């Protein structure tokens, strides 16, 4: 068994650093390190420490390098942070660069069978006798590879002083109380802890300690789970999907939770249907059919999927069919980087399809908003009778976030303007003698009334089509009919402007600079604003939560000398969209866009604005 011998003697630990550093765990994909990393995060979270985890994994099933970044921030900054103080090296393929990446003064825990290329003098090395500990534990052969990862949990627990009880609780939670795996894993954690205690001198500065004030009233959850739960509590009844990273877990969570929460209490039959389609063209087609027939219908996909959905989304816009489309964005264009995050689908989603047309887009910033917007999206889709996009991304969707507890939705479902047979019979009386027309705007909001197939009234039927039609849904090629209908759709879009979630604004007295951003950039913006303030730059901040934007955005831009539009794509898509709506004040807008597959960091944003 190896002990710490090789590493250079570092200076004494002058000052301990509590709850404020970055751990990076380097493993290979498919090696089961996910459980270990979750145990670390969960126990830190339960200790009250603000913590965030970002999984940087390859588009591969097994064997390629994977990094898991755990940031602790006593101040509550939970964006991706570039610098790493604690490196845990479990993967020979990347060990050299991993060790090189640590900040001076940092520490390196490593599987002691790995080679060390360069004995840096400015960091501390802690070898871990993984192989020996696994051997000693006498594990079932098929589990060895996975449980080996508990070694670093134990060693880290010792060095950082993570509460072992919390690790134990986390394991119990993770394995749903199943004794056998809990014992095996816990055994390995304690063995490693004990080994570390016996063999390591804890002369490094990083420590954790229980704290309060941040994690109260929160959950630790990934966005896709939240999205699925949101859909369930928003009364979804139909989902069709096709597997694609990083959206797959929305559909899979939906299936898991719905099986438990959405059965008829008497018959145990399902109050929903989930269909794995043969592709995205079929998935959206099914959603169109279901939404048209009266289901609350949704799909979840990612970039390539929305490309394939173009024609149907244009149909939905024109034929006015409610549909909710989750686009959990990954890096595009094309197949791109399937396991990396981006905000590159904004423009495509907003304008999807040939010909004229715009679609409402909701942009959640964290799992809580995923939960809420799942409901908002259905309400809007049914109210507006149009496809509504929700643009999440891999960072929100697949990483776990500390996020506000979900509030039970108080508002009843908005099922929109649907006429029952009885309402249809009374329609004329209730609308100044105006006969019902499927595409007739009687309320002045651009939104007509619809009937569902099966409505037991001889006048309920109409013929839905993607071709020109009159207000009474009869075929028409007359220029006037076409134009009138399209102008009504434009007017309906103005109605949407008033209904979509308003931006969230945080204005600072005396600031001359504004920042506009969206979605998962939120934590990085918060942190960047704090850094800018340290540099004497006060900023106000508006977070766009939906397209089309409303007047608040214009009002915000008008107030500031310069407004930075921060986004995670190459082309500055939000910037371009805002330019069109706000062109009179366009000269104030500055695009701050970057896209390399990683969530934006506060450091980079700060540099862009301060420069």
């Amino acid at each position, binding site marked *: 068994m190896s002990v710490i011998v090789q590493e250079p003697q570092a200076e004494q630990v002058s000052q301990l650093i509590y709850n404020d550093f970055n751990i990076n765990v380097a493993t290979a994909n498919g090696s089961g390190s996910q459980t270990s990393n979750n145990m670390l995060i969960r126990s830190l979270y339960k200790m009250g420490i603000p913590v965030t985890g970002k999984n940087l994994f390859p588009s591969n099933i097994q064997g390629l390098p994977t990094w898991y970044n755990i940031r602790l921030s006593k101040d509550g900054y939970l964006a991706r942070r570039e610098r790493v103080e604690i490196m845990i090296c479990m993967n020979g393929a990347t060990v050299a660069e991993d060790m090189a990446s640590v900040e001076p003064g940092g520490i390196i825990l490593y599987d002691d069978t790995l080679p060390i290329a360069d004995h840096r003098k400015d960091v501390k090395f802690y070898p871990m006798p993984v192989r020996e500990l696994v051997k000693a534990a006498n594990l079932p052969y098929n589990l060895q590879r996975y449980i080996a990862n508990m070694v670093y949990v134990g060693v880290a627990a010792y060095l950082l002083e993570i509460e072992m009880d919390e690790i134990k609780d986390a394991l119990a939670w993770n394995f749903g109380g199943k004794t056998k795996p809990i014992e095996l894993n816990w055994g390995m954690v304690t063995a490693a802890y004990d080994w570390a205690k016996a063999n390591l001198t804890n002369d490094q500065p990083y420590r954790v300690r229980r704290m309060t004030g941040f994690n109260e009233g929160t*959950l*630790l*959850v990934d966005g896709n*789970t939240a999205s699925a*739960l949101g859909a*369930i509590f*928003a*009364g979804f*009844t*139909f989902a*069709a999907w096709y597997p694609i990273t990083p959206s797959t877990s929305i559909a899979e969570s939906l299936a898991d*939770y719905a099986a438990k*929460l*959405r059965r*008829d209490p008497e018959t145990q*039959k399902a*109050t*929903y*249907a989930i*269909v794995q*389609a*043969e592709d995205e*063209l*079929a998935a*959206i*087609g*099914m959603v*169109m*059919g*279901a*939404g*048209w*027939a*009266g*289901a609350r*219908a949704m799909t979840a996909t990612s970039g390539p999927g929305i490309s394939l959905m173009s*024609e*149907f989304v244009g*149909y939905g816009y024109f034929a006015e069919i409610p549909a909710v489309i989750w686009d959990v964005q990954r890096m595009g264009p094309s197949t791109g980087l399937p396991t990396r995050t981006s905000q590159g689908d904004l423009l495509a989603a907003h304008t999807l399809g040939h010909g004229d047309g715009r679609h409402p887009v909701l942009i959640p910033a964290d799992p809580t908003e995923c939960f809420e917007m799942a409901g908002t999206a259905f309400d809007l889709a049914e109210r507006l009778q149009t496809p509504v996009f929700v643009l999440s991304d891999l960072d929100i969707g697949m990483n776990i976030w500390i996020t506000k*507890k*979900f509030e*039970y*939705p108080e508002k*009843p*479902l908005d099922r929109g303007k649907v006429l029952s047979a009885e309402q249809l019979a009374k329609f004329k009386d209730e609308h100044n003698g105006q006969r019902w027309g499927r595409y007739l705007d009687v309320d002045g909001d651009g939104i007509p009334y619809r009937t*569902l*197939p*099966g*409505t*037991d*009234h*001889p006048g*309920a*039927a*109409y*013929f*839905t*089509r993607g071709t020109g039609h009159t207000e009474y849904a*009869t*075929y028409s090629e007359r220029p006037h009919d076409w134009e009138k209908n399209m102008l009504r759709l434009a007017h309906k879009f103005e109605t949407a402007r008033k209904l979509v979630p308003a931006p969230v604004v945080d204005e600072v007295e005396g600031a001359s600079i504004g920042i506009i951003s969206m979605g998962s950039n939120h934590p990085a913006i918060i942190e960047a604003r704090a850094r800018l303030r340290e540099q004497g730059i006060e900023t106000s901040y508006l977070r766009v939560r939906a397209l089309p934007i409303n007047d608040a955005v214009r009002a915000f831009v008008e107030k500031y000398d310069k407004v930075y539009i921060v986004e995670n794509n190459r082309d500055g898509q939000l910037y371009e969209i805002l330019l069109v709506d706000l062109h009179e004040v366009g000269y104030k807008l500055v695009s701050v866009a970057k896209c390399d597959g990683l969530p934006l960091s506060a450091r980079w944003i700060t540099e862009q604005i301060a420069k």
Partner: protein
Amino acid sequence: MTATPTRTPAPRAPKLNLIGLEKNAYKGADSTLCNGCGHDSISSRIINAAWEMGLKQEKVVKFSGIGCSSKTPAYFLGMSHGFNSLHGRMPSVATGALVANRTLIGIGVSGDGDTASIGIGQFKHLVRRNVPMVYIVENNGVYGLTKGQFSATADQGQKLKYAGTNPYMPLDVCLEALAANATFVARSFAGDAKQLEALLKAAIAHKGLAVLDVISPCVTFNNHDESTKSYAFGKENETPLHDLSFVPSFEQIEIDEYDDETEVQLHDGSWLVLKKLDEHYDPTDKHLAYRTLEDARKQQKLLTGIFYIEPETPNFLDILQMTETPLAHLPEAQTRPGRAALEKLMAEL
């Protein structure tokens, strides 16, 4: 089979059907197709079949893709909702709608281009899921609406005015359905009113997906006598596998069994009676169906009738195990779990 089908001599066509409607009530808008188009005949057959079966139009939904054929749902059952979708994409739309409201009776109309060219993928998967609906391919071997290009069902060696000679072997809609595990596979001819109506009724009564490949001449682009999709060819060469009749479940009177007849009972209690013609054809023998269809394709023979049927295979709705109430009608109380459920969930996260 335990029971036997029963018939009384058909009474003279009454003015009103079972639910008290005249046949006219089953019409739709005026057709805008070419005079004499096969598709219009099929629409008439649908009107007739629906009227005779006493279908309640409010319970019917019509689906289609894009093409001359796909326009026709506007021309029949005017009191039924219709969804004229996208080119080749009717199957997915129908799937969604029929799952959303399981009480609806689905009738889909497509073309050979719509189904066999752009739409073959969705078609295969619709068949595989056994979505309960009637799927009619109005097969004329050309793209009518875009003016006469070859579709994937055009015969090898066929010549068309603008498109030249077709070098490819056709895809056979019935064979494709069979390979994808279809439970009802039939072919008919727009000019054979009696057979087509019997098949339509059986298709409506069928528990799962019923594929009806109907040869439907395009009088404008593909009706010269050599074309296997022409009226002339059909009238001369149609070879029925059997003499078909449909006995609805509401006409249940015992009669004798005949030697030269096979009866297939459908899920709703109705019967399809197949009277032997030349040779006995057993529509429950899948191997026979493959052989018969493949030979017909190779020899460019117009065989009609029901090639294959599985009356009881679970359909898509059975598989999904949903509540009886249509999803579209579930009240909020049943679709939004309670407050406690959310609290419990969050506690478990």
